[in-house]
């Protein structure tokens, strides 16, 4: 009798599993049909279709990505700062080397965006049209994405405090990544970021990169650091040096835990000849310096390490680096008559990224610089009032530097930014403010300043373009048409 019941249970279980699989497949094909329809519809309307189709797909079939056959090799890029730059570098090098790369460089890096990127390059049955994928993945989406997709390689640039609203704190992001990343993934981690270097202990195939060149002589600790004590024993961390935030080399005074040895190290940066040198396995490779901001040296070194682990020769990567550029929407320098305008994307709500930009401007050798800040969040200021906490994690004291003659805060949060700057010790006499984001361009004093730095949020690209246009018009003496 018991045996009969057991047999019946087994049959029922098999039936249920089969039914579940069948239902899952039906859901998947429904999702694929709806998403493809949305994709082609949006493309017809001239849109990129980089988010909505995928969002529709995962809404109908939450494990949609799981049903897709993945490209032979999947490279993922994550971390707080530098994801897009690193993804673009990887895409450019791999494309230059003849690979046909599936990527999400034009679109969203969250769950729906990843699904969109994959489905746009898949057949209706879910087979991939390309053999290689480079996907930028938002850290917070990791749980949803890696549940159904095992990256062959994952590079994590760094883990720092980011948007208070979305990312909370670094322990939360570390928790997500440690839970989500599959153990078989080969990880490329920033050795000079102790939080990043300690991530995903389940992944045993680990490569560390970092920058030894131009290490600061002192270990002056900045106010904002995201790790202060040893997570193993609670002892104090002793730094050999700190570049910014917690980026540097440190060791626990009590138990010895600390920064790992690097496998790929930038040993020299030659700013005169625009090159940097990466050492690994005893070999030095001199590459073109795509951008001299130290954060981009880290990004380039990480990309080099990943491409090397992927199997490209140093020579091949070196040749590809010769042609690389950082995309213009992120960094562009324009010379108009005797005025230089540097347009630099400074991700709003992200205090470390913004502070790096401010430090970059302050360290520029030119005198009488003008800083024009259009960092306010666009969406959060439409029938809303942006959370301004992040301004207080930004280091505005860079604007107190005497080489900066003028600071302009343009946008709905200009009054908050003004107060923040005063608290940081910036001379009120050199600050101007305006509530209209685009009006900032009208306030620049070209008699005083010939070096203009415009920092803009990634959702303010349109405003940045308009500001640049106005600046150029004013330099050329044209009248600026009032809105």
């Amino acid at each position, binding site marked *: 009798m018991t045996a009969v019941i057991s047999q019946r249970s087994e049959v029922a279980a098999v039936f249920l599993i089969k039914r579940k699989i069948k239902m899952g497949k039906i859901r998947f094909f429904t999702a694929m049909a709806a998403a493809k329809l949305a994709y082609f519809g949006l493309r017809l309307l001239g849109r990129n279709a980089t988010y909505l189709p995928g969002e529709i797909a995962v809404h109908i079939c939450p494990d949609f990505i799981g049903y897709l056959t993945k490209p032979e090799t999947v490279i993922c890029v994550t971390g707080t700062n530098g994801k897009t730059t690193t993804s673009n570098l990887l895409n450019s090098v791999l494309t230059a080397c003849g690979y046909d790369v599936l990527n999400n460089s034009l679109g969203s890096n969250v769950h729906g965006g990843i699904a969109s990127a994959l489905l746009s390059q898949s057949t209706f049955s879910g087979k991939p049209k390309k053999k290689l994928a480079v996907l930028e993945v938002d850290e917070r989406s990791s749980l949803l994405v890696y549940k159904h997709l095992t990256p062959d390689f994952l590079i994590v640039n760094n883990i720092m405090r980011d948007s208070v609203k979305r990312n909370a704190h670094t322990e939360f992001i570390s928790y997500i990544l440690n839970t989500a990343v599959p153990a078989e993934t080969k990880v490329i981690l920033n050795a000079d970021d102790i939080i990043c270097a300690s991530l995903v202990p389940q992944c045993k195939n680990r490569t560390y990169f970092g920058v030894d060149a131009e290490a600061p002589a002192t270990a002056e600790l900045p106010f904002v650091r995201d790790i202060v004590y040893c997570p193993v024993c609670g002892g104090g961390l002793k730094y050999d040096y700190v570049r910014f935030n917690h980026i540097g080399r440190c060791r626990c005074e009590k138990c010895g835990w600390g920064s790992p040895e690097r496998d790929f190290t930038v040993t020299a940066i030659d700013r005169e000849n625009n090159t940097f040198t990466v050492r690994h396995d005893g070999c030095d490779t001199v590459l073109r310096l795509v951008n001299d901001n130290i954060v981009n040296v880290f990004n380039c070194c990480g990309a080099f390490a990943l491409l090397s682990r992927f199997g490209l020769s140093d020579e091949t990567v070196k040749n590809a680096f010769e042609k690389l550029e950082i995309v213009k929407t992120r960094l562009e320098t324009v010379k108009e008559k005797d005025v230089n305008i540097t347009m630099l994307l400074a991700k709003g709500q992200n205090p470390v990224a913004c502070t790096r930009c401010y430090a970059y401007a302050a360290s520029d050798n030119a005198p009488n610089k003008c800083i024009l800040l259009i960092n306010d969040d666009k969406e959060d200021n439409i029938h809303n009032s942006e959370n301004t906490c992040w301004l*207080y994690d930004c280091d505005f004291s860079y604007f107190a530097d005497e080489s900066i003659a003028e600071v302009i805060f343009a946008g709905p949060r200009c009054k908050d930014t003004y107060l923040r700057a005063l608290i940081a010790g910036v001379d009120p006499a050199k600050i101007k403010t305006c509530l209209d984001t685009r009006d900032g361009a009208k306030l620049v004093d070209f008699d005083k300043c010939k070096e203009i730095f415009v920092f803009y949020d990634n959702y303010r690209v349109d405003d940045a373009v308009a500001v640049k246009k106005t600046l150029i018009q004013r330099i050329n003496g044209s009248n600026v048409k009032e809105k």
Partner: protein
Amino acid sequence: MTVEVLFRELCNLNADGQNSVYLRECMPDADFIETPIGGEPYFKDGRPDIIMMGHMSESTQRAVIKKLMPFKSRIEELIDAGTVFLMTGNACEVFCRHISYVTEKTETDALGIFPLDARCDLFDRYNGKQLSVFNGDIKLVGFKSQFSFLFGDNSQFAFAKCERGIGINRESVYEGMRKNNFLGTHLSGPILPLNPLFTEYVMHLAGHGGEAAFREAAMDAYRHHLKEFEDPEVRF
């Protein structure tokens, strides 16, 4: 005038650490003591006029509770004696009864000074604004970004009453807790520079007669926020 800032090296999330920076500007004659988590609190034997602590991670919160538990009766003594406490973000939970961390599947007893319990869920983040009335006549503007909510009836000892936004949880209009000069609120970030009138109230509570630093700029920004927060078109 002595201000003790507790564990600022850790309790500085959401830029909470900047409240003490601003207060230094407001009271340049005051002594500021920053006690690290490994150090002995100044309040153990000393009598600070203001004790501050800001928002922290969940693991830090557990460490802070462990650290402060032996000083529970001293803290109660200081509260009764009228010392000003300014506990922002989830620092206020440290003084409640119990905290359960549902994601991490752990829980801890807190100091138990207020009959409220916290529930922390890493996958239920709340972001919002709050317009509230403090002490009957000071309008507060502020922001919340948190994983946790408090439960219990705080209507008789609330820090402020909300006009817009939520109180200690999504159903509550009562914000935080107050006992004598103990001020606890989930509002986090630069609550002092955002609210110069509140800052001056805190200073006066502690016996300092000065005014908020950069008052004109702070009031200008405050009025602008207030106008936005009172605008029915602005989403909460």
